[in-house]
């Protein structure tokens, strides 16, 4: 927008940012807003923070700081209203996807054989689906026989789980999940307590 070097009043600018956040389904970076409006980032940042304050209380919506940007979303306490409205459309991750993405999040970069070892089942399909859904992505190859692909989580993953960055995941690096090989196949069916 060239000609738009129109001087925005703060209120007008807030309203413009409100529009932009509203129409953008992904988190929107200050930089993107500033570029579109042809304004400097500091001005945008200031107006955005004011706008966030307006949204801080008594509203159904909020402006979250997510994945390096800002996103307008509903407040968690209204989840039931939304679910009631959308009924069956709201879907959840399958159990397999949930497990797999959790393992990848904590142990990235990780190869599929390593994931399989932890889960005790082949994860081909799930890894493919998660990749298609853009929750995980290939991060190169491991320097080991067969050079298997390494997987890691994406921005979309952060977005989906409402995390501003990976550091917000519980710190697991030092805790160590069971090493793939020693994690053993967890209870092959009858061996253990949960008899069938």
């Amino acid at each position, binding site marked *: 927008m060239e000609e738009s070097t129109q001087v925005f009043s703060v209120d007008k600018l807030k309203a413009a940012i409100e529009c932009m956040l509203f129409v953008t389904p992904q988190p929107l970076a200050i930089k993107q807003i500033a570029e579109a409006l042809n304004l400097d980032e500091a001005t945008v940042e200031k107006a955005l923070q004011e706008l966030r304050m307006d949204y801080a209380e008594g509203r159904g919506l909020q402006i979250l700081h997510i994945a390096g940007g800002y996103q307008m979303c509903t407040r968690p306490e209204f989840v039931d209203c939304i679910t009631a409205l959308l009924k069956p459309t709201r879907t959840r991750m399958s159990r397999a996807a949930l497990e797999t993405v959790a393992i990848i999040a904590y142990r990235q970069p990780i190869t599929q054989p390593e994931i399989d070892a932890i889960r005790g089942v082949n994860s081909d399909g799930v890894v493919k689906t998660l990749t298609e859904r853009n929750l995980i992505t290939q991060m190169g190859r491991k320097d080991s026989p067969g050079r298997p692909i390494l997987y890691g989580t994406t921005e979309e993953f952060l977005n989906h789980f409402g995390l501003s960055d990976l550091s917000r995941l519980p710190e697991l690096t030092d*805790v160590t999940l069971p090493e793939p090989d*020693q994690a053993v196949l967890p209870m092959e069916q009858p061996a253990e307590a949960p008899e069938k």
Partner: protein
Amino acid sequence: MAIELIQQSGYTIKLPAFEGPLDLLLHLIRERKVDIYDIPIAEVTEQYISYLSLMESLDLNIAGEFFVMASTLLEIKSRMLLPIPPSEGDNEEGADPRAELIERLLEYERFKNASESLKEFEEERRKVFWRIADDLQNYDAPVMPLNLEAMDLLFALQQMLADVGEGTEEVTSIERQKISLRMKMRQVWGRIKSVPDGIGFRELVDDPKSRIEIVMTFLAILELLRLGKIKARQKKALGEINIQAVKEQ
């Protein structure tokens, strides 16, 4: 919308594109600013036909309806030339031969005007944006008997770890070897099974105080879920997660 033509002479002519013969005819009439109820039929017919031949000479595709209209016009024109038959009462046959055409033109014009209003509405509406639907599609086979999302489990885990706090962390290699996933699963399963109404997630990680214990418990729960031994439910968003043994049939 206009048809742009480049003639051999090098001139560019823009012809308005007409939606049909009525559109063209209406244009010719309105352009002349004559009373539509008293169309100078001979003149208009002549113009109409010369417009058609212009289009033809330019090899434009002309819909058949344009020619039908041309013959209608010619017919009206010839009927206008006939002497008006001596009126026998209110004979409809004696009516103006143009009447039906005028009716059609007026009817068409009404909608043409309406469509222009609609166009303005469309323009206004185009300036306004709404959200596209959130992507709520399924992730994978919908086999999950689970009432909650990964997010909820992860949040629960996060909460738990936060409660333990950084300071009390006593991660050592010794600690690491003490707990295996297998052991944890057995332990968790035992506790869950003992409470028919189910047990809260937090309760399950009640006593262990190290991060690794919590993480192992979490993984054990995931594993038991995977095996279909237990199910997890949540009464309200971000509420306590209740874990229950799946009844064996």
